[in-house]
């Protein structure tokens, strides 16, 4: 009984905001996973061929920028849901 009323209040209160926060967290989780993969393959490639380190570093930064763009797209959607 009390649980039902408590849930009722919680649902009314800020479920939208909670959902937005979860969405942003999931987006960041995806970005972190992807960046970790980029870093892993960059490390392995540099270890295999140290003289290509400069090229690999440049490509890594570039691909990191693309990844950040995708996750920030999700953040923009979350901001829109929060304030509009």
């Amino acid at each position, binding site marked *: 009984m009390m649980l039902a009323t408590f849930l009722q209040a919680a649902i009314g209160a800020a479920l939208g905001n909670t959902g937005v926060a979860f969405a942003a967290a999931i987006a960041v989780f995806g970005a972190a996973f992807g960046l970790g993969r980029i870093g892993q393959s960059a490390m392995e490639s540099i270890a295999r061929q140290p003289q290509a380190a400069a090229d690999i570093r440049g490509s890594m930064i570039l691909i990191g920028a693309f990844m950040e763009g995708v996750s920030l797209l999700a*953040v923009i959607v979350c901001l829109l849901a929060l304030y509009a």
Partner: protein
Amino acid sequence: MKKFAYILALMLLAALPVVSSEEGELINGTVNRPVNGLVAEQNGAVNEPVSELIGASAGDLVSASVSGLANEPVDEPLDVKGIIFEHLKDSYHWHIITIGKREISLQLPVILYSRVSGWHLFMSGKLNENGSYKNFYITDEGAHAGKLMEILPDGTELKPLDLSFTKVAFGALINSLLLCVIVMFTARWYRHHKSTDPAPKGFVGLMEFLVAMLMDDVIKPSVGKEYRRYAPLLLTIFFFILLSNLMGLIPLFPAGANVTGNIAVTLFLALITFFTVNLFGSREYWREILWPDVPVFLKAPVPLLPIIEIVGIFTKPFALTVRLFANITAGHAIILSLTCVIFITAKMGPVIGTPMTLLSLFFMIFMNFVELIVAYVQAYVFTMLSAVFIGLSRPEHERHNNGEAKVEAAGNNCESHQTKNEITIQNINKLN
């Protein structure tokens, strides 16, 4: 001793965002919203001219209004969201500095067209503290929050066509003029030196390094043979985005407008790429979109792949827009939040306040350096993607007549392309 001086200079530099924001809101906790009656007459005394823009003198371009009350409550919670949004959003005036209780800001022209009352042109200082002039006032909530709306005598609200020269527009103009000065200064060196002279040093050397790197690594491989036609456009895009990103990080007057953090500006930059790609795309490009070289069941009766390709025409500039906008806005928001952390924790007493201040300070310095990297990388990524799109829209080589139907991207040099069979035959001939 010298190292200590450097560290001290860095700390003072990091304190600039704090000093340059409105003293009222950061120290007292709220943006000063003075009582109408009290300040209206003081405003009336300071903002002298009643004539419109044509008769404006230099004195009313910079309005120094006395803002704030003497009895501002000190223990109100800090409006962090308001501070951050105010720095990220556009506005009708350009706030420069607040000395004590006086707020000095640059007024900008407001240009409105209303269906009811026609054209209006006035400086934004005419908007009183509560933001109203004639029938126009700045709304606080609703879909058009923060913008000028017209309120008719019968109470209805009407949004006028707002062509005002706002802070972001003025900032973009300043950035463009600065870019012209920089590029012309660089070009001047090349006019006065022969091509056999040693390479330039200093600032011109830096510009040469950037331009040469872009040309060799981005433009020539991606655009292909016609790179000279598109190189000026792509280089301009790169330097404009780079300069605007860097200027957005400096909090002092001519810099500091959040130009690339405004989605209208980035949308316009992406539209440049969109029109360049689609208006100058070759017939081959449009053929690949509308009737691609795939099995017939994907093209007719239901054009699945053409629809996907047409959607792709629009998503690429959209991604360019949002990538640049989101990166720059996120960076600014982080730096502003860290600044606000100092003031929030300062109110909690010196035990929490001091270590949090130091932590926030060093983290803020670090984030500023990260933002420098992000400024360069975002400009580079935008330019590189634009170059790739332009190159893909004008592919150079079509089907090879030895049966290998390969549409080459414009990057490959056709003389050096050989199919595997030809390479094998050549090697066999070399061995013999």
